[in-house]
């Protein structure tokens, strides 16, 4: 504003300059064209007058000007003074014409507009030239200091020139003038939090900024430290820089980041360049070994020589040793077409469509893994073996025999009541022996526990098999749905030639429904006069949740809904529907379809084909994931079944080792008690009947 009033300035010789239109404005000054001198520009500082230190620095810079510097920078030519006060107020520099900021080359939208002819080759060339400009300055002992995307201008031939040279760090005799400013996204970790005004910069600092600039160029605008984070963290670029989290690095276990979608990958570049980037961005503290400008020039020159054109799309250029065109890969994954022909937004070569067609033709719908009921084998208890000989009879065995003997004695009761008494005593004694003897108890318990364990294991296995079957059925249902949807999409693709408009209408319908289903009454109650949260949840319980559910039929079912609210609901539904805007997913809208051009159909088909291919990948991985999941679950089941089988075996072994008589009587305390009473009771009965 103040500078706007300042029309005339003079240099130290007293020559007058009239300021013309504003070329640009920054944090430190405004830059003007100079009237009648198209090759010059005048930067007028906001701070007026500038600090004496600034004036001294500029004087030193003017004095050190040479043709080499003029070739790569808008190097200061003279100090400018206010013609009123005679005080220094700015600096005269060459004007860089027909050039734009670097970010207007690597930014895709701006590139389409300002550099429509540019291909990746041009970006690599620009990168090479940026490195060369850094190299030239470094060779002259000058440091850039504030490396950023706005301090370099680039023209159509990819020639680069530095502007804003007054912030450079320069030496004059014993005096070093520092660079007081910095741009955080380009600042190396060791300078974070440092007061730049008093910081002596080094070439290694500049080389960090250089690598960031080069990365932006080669990766079409991506910042090396912006990527997808593992886990739910938030992180600024500065922090990522400080923690060496280079998002494209190979060492993801260290960075815990991965590159963003639809971007070039580090291994799309020659291995030598890969290494340079890793070195530049992951340099540990205390080392100063970032790649020099010279190293970059060498490798970028090599890359320029080793480029290859894509066979499908003439705008795609890439490193020739790659087996596949990375730009096609990005497009096929749903990314943008970064490079275009002649500024038109999409030109589709016939080969590209053919290639996609061929891929679609080969499209196979993956099979979903089958699950048969035979997969679940639940082990059963096995009958004990009859052994030829058993070991030494134990107390339990003797007691069991005594039991049998007592029972016989009891049954002899009609012949002699004494036998009954002896039998009853024997029965009681052997029962007590069985009940109390340690080894008898141990035998009983061992078998009992094994039997219980087996039963529990069987129940568990049955439960597991039901759960696995249910989960599998659920996965299958969603897989089947996905397959059906994919088939519909394929049919849309096929239909496009004939009825693009109908197909678009279908897409619109789908989008509208999606829009409406997500527009919940409960969240938008305030838009419906008379609606309360309580009413909204009543409606919800009757399945009326979104405008899509607002139909006569549905509302009929809701008790006590008064007519006023019903009308409001309908009015609301209409309002919400009107809010919906169709987003053409294929860059093709109804008017394109109306125009009926072949181009519209082609554009539609290419995008649709990509959608389908992507979805089919997804389907493949869904099937694969389900297969893995099922395998995991079945192995898990089998492992449980194995341990149940082990139980059954142990049970059988334990049972087989026992004499059958003991095994039957010494099953459980109940059995023993029953047997103890049964003999005498039967004897008593027999005595009463026959005695």
């Amino acid at each position, binding site marked *: 504003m103040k500078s706007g009033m300042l029309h005339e300035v003079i240099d130290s010789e007293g020559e007058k300059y009239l300021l013309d239109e504003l070329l640009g404005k920054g*944090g430190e000054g405004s830059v003007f064209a100079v009237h009648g001198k198209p090759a010059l520009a005048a930067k007028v500082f906001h701070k007026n007058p500038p600090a004496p230190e600034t004036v001294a620095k500029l004087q030193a810079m003017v004095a050190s000007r040479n043709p080499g510097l003029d070739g790569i920078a808008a190097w200061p030519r003279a100090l400018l003074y206010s013609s009123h006060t005679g005080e220094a107020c700015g600096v005269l520099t060459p004007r860089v014409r027909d050039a734009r*900021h670097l*970010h*207007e080359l690597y*930014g*895709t*939208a*701006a590139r389409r507009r300002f550099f429509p002819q540019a291909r990746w080759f041009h970006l690599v060339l620009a990168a090479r030239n940026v490195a060369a400009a850094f190299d030239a300055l470094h060779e002259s002992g000058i440091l850039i200091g504030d490396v950023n*995307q*706005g301090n370099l201008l680039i023209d159509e031939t990819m020639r680069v020139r530095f502007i804003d040279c007054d912030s450079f760090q320069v030496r004059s005799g014993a005096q070093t003038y520092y660079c007081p400013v910095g*741009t*955080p*996204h380009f600042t190396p970790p060791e300078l974070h939090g440092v007061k730049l005004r008093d910081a002596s910069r080094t070439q290694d600092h500049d080389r960090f900024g250089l690598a960031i600039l080069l990365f932006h160029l080669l990766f*079409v*605008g*991506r*910042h090396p430290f*912006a*990527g*997808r*984070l593992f886990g739910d963290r*938030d992180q*600024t*670029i*500065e*922090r990522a820089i400080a923690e060496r989290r280079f*998002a494209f690095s190979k060492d993801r276990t260290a960075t815990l980041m991965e*590159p*963003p*979608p*639809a*971007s070039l990958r580090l291994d799309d570049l020659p291995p030598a360049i890969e290494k340079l980037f890793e070195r530049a961005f992951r340099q540990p503290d205390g080392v100063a070994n970032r790649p020099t400008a010279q190293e970059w020039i060498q490798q970028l020159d090599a890359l320029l020589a080793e480029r290859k054109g894509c066979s499908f799309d003439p705008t795609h250029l890439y490193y020739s040793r790659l087996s596949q065109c990375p730009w096609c890969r*990005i497009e096929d*994954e*749903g*990314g*943008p077409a*970064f490079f275009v022909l002649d500024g038109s937004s999409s030109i589709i070569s016939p080969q590209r469509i053919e290639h996609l067609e061929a891929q679609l033709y080969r499209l196979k719908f993956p099979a979903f893994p089958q699950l048969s009921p035979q997969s679940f084998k639940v082990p059963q208890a096995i009958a004990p073996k009859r052994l030829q000989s058993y070991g030494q009879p134990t107390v339990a065995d003797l007691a069991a025999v005594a039991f049998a003997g007592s029972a016989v004695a009891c049954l002899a009761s009609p012949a002699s009541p004494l036998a009954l008494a002896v039998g009853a005593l024997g029965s009681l004694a052997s029962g007590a022996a069985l009940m109390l003897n340690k080894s008898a108890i141990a035998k009983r318990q061992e078998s009992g526990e094994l039997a219980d364990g087996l039963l529990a294991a069987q129940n568990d296995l049955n439960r597991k098999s039901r759960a696995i079957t249910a989960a599998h059925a659920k996965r299958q249902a*969603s897989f089947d*749905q*996905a397959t059906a*949807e*994919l088939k519909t*999409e394929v049919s849309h693709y096929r239909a496009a030639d004939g009825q693009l408009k109908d197909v678009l209408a279908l897409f619109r319908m*789908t989008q509208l*429904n*999606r829009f409406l*289903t997500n527009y919940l009454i409960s969240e*938008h109650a*305030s*838009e419906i006069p008379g609606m309360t949260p309580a009413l909204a949840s009543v409606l919800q319980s009757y399945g009326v949740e979104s405008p899509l559910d607002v139909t006569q039929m549905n509302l009929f079912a809701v008790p006590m809904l008064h007519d006023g609210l019903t009308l409001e609901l309908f009015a609301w539904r209409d*309002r919400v529907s009107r*809010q919906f805007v169709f*987003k053409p*997913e294929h860059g093709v809208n109804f008017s394109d379809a109306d125009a009926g051009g072949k181009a519209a159909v082609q554009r539609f088909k290419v995008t649709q084909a*990509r*959608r389908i291919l*992507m*979805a089919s990948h*997804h389907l493949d991985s869904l099937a694969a994931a389900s297969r893995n999941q099922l395998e995991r679950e079945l192995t898990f089941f089998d492992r449980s079944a194995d341990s149940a089988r082990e139980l059954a075996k142990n049970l059988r072994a334990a049972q087989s080792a026992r004499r059958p008589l003991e095994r039957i009587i010494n099953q459980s305390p109940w059995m023993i008690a029953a047997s103890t009473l049964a003999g005498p009771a039967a004897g008593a009965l027999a005595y009463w009947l026959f005695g």
Partner: protein
Amino acid sequence: MNKFFADSTYDGSFGAVEFAENPEPRVPCVLIVDTSTSMHGPRIGELNKGLKVYRDELLCDALAAKRVEVAVVTFGGRVTRKVDFVTATNFQPPTLEVVGGTPMGAAINTALDMIEERRQQYRENGIAYYRPWAFLITDGEPNDQWQPVAARIRAGEQRKAFSFFAVGVKGANMEILQKLSARKPLWLQGMKFAELFRWLSNSQQAVSRSSPGDEVPLVDPTQGPDGWAFV
């Protein structure tokens, strides 16, 4: 319905293209604009002009134009997502019309939801971003529940999830704005919407050049010839 496509491709690729074509770090700003009937006449007219000034100012700065993202939520009778987040380059200032009451609470909620959704998209697409702005302009008072929103604003400010600004046009209930906003709400001088939006654009340009996380000192809007506010 068509869930599979919705999840796997449609939403994903749509965002991916947008962000791949322009991976610059973003400065998101959602304008929450009162379009109830009290805003009728010259007010809404000046506000509409202000939106155009805002766009034009942002477009003058090539870098800010790629970084500042604008969304507009209006509340007049009902809450409408008038403009979903777009970069300044693609921002078409809408022509707002007035109608109905002042559901301010719901509007703020919608705006904060939008910020949350956008943040998620940034994360998924590896886009760095600055602290989002929510900028409320009103000349009245809420006719809906606003207390829960006040709590949400306070919590969000504390987590530095966004910065919430409130500007009252003559007639606004400053007491409620005071309770809503952690920052002191400002009165608009007369109908200086153009100055307001110029200030907004300048502040966001400054932010878009700072480092995310830094507090950028904002120019005091109550001072100087370009001032537009008073307290």
